[in-house]
């Protein structure tokens, strides 16, 4: 009987009974978070590129300016609406609301990826904007001066640098997503947190189950944040003053150094 057990015993009892449920829930959580963060990043970078396209009142044709204006307004609305409203309500509207009003029956997984991705995208758009601001404007000028278009300059010069700057933020967003997928229980996605709710609703052992899920969440987030840190380190590589061996390179290129 669970009533006679100590806290630790209860944890082991729960694990033994619901262990695989927790693991499956964690898997669901991780898949949704990873995929959606990835898609969200792409959305964020795209919107970053578009939002920073410069408009030249004198030069650009009216059509282009109006079109760009419209796209920008749509982007702003997208960002503000999806950042500005709770994901749980968005999920309900998209999954049940669409079914009721438009008769569109999205699959549970489709809806899950959709909702989390567009949310992450909205947040990432702002993060990317911050990252772009923080890149020295001289970099953009350098890129333009060799004839790059805005998009080329963004892709080749600005975003790679902005990316490095917002990598900690991407880590934040991934971790937020790992936790926020819990709201998808409203569209019957059985993620880790839903398993916790079920278990504590079946056994009324809230703290014990909470301890387990905390440990699982922590494991997942620790691993992801460790991996991201390694990635950062790798990107920074040269900060450790990597050797530029004059002689070696010279001979390797078959050139004699001129001085």
């Amino acid at each position, binding site marked *: 009987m669970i009533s006679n057990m100590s806290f630790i015993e209860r944890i082991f009892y729960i694990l033994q009974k619901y262990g695989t449920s927790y693991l499956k829930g964690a898997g669901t959580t991780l898949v949704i978070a990873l995929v959606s963060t990835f898609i969200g990043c792409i959305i964020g970078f795209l919107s970053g590129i578009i939002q920073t396209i410069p408009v030249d009142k004198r030069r650009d044709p009216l059509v282009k300016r109006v079109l760009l204006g419209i796209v920008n307004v749509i982007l702003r609305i997208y960002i503000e609406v999806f950042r500005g409203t709770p994901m749980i309500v968005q999920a309900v509207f998209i999954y049940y609301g669409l079914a009721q009003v438009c008769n569109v029956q999205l699959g549970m997984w489709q809806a899950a990826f959709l909702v989390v991705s567009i949310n992450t995208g909205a947040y990432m758009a702002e993060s990317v904007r911050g990252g772009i601001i923080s890149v020295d404007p001289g970099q953009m000028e350098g890129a333009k001066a060799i004839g790059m278009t805005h998009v080329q300059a963004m892709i080749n010069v600005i975003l790679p640098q902005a990316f490095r700057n917002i990598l900690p933020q991407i880590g934040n967003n991934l971790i937020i997503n790992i936790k926020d997928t819990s709201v998808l229980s409203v569209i*019957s996605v059985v993620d880790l947190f839903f398993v916790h709710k*079920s*278990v504590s609703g079946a056994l009324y052992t809230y703290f014990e189950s909470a301890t387990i899920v905390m440990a699982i969440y922590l494991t997942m987030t620790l691993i992801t944040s460790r991996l991201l840190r390694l990635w950062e380190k790798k990107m920074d590589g040269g900060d450790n003053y990597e050797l530029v061996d004059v002689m070696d390179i010279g001979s390797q290129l078959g050139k004699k150094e001129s001085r």
Partner: protein
Amino acid sequence: GCGSGTETAETEEAAGAAEETTEASGAEDDAAEGSKVLKVAMECGYAPYNWTQPDDANGAVPINDSSDYAYGYDVMIAKKIADTLGYELQIVKLDWDALIPAVQSGTVDCVIAGQSTTAERLEMVDFSKPYYYATVVGLVKQDSAYANAAGLADLKGATCTSQLGTIWYDNCLSQIEDANIQPAQESAPAMLVALESGRTDLVVTDMPTAMAACAAYPDMKLLDFSGTDDDFSVSDEEVNIGISVQKGNTELIDGINSVLETMTVDDFNSLMQEAISVQPLAE
């Protein structure tokens, strides 16, 4: 119900195909067209009404899109309805908040989740006849000043709470004199945590939940004033627990009612007794 395993597997396939072809016209047509699937939504986390378990012990039903199984009083009722009406039962595990949008949008056919039938709710969904009559009891900690309360009067001044959207919270707490009513709790587990931690002196809930709570928290005490004249006063109507379906889905509601009419209060109680005896806590 689950005895006809092979048969239901076939009908499930057929039903799936039928569902695809009729997708455009919405899920609510499933029942109307006599399709063989009954989608029932519940939290699967509110023992002994409904809970999640890792295996199909005692005749538990697989949860849709999950490897776990659901069982409990609500599932027993659902199985009985499905068997009698010739549906294949599908349990959809959903967060409490989403139960109503799900049934209103037709994503599920009905909700069997211990919902009280109130006049306000009847405006938005249709309810079946009661499938259980809830009792009202209090829960306190054994070392609490209210542990020996013999009636409502003894609870005077207690800090108390209950679950969100229940008659216990909406109607019962206010009957305690000078009660310090705290905001409602979203779920039964959270409510019990509040009591256990000493944040609240008393929670009010129904008998099955309270019994489960006492099993999980041995230091809790159940206060049952029924039979005394200082009990919580609730009308029969208020303690009705019903099954909700989309408004206007008369065919389904009639079917459900026809099943429930065959059952007596004693049937309900003995089913509940069975649920309590097989709930995970009882192991």
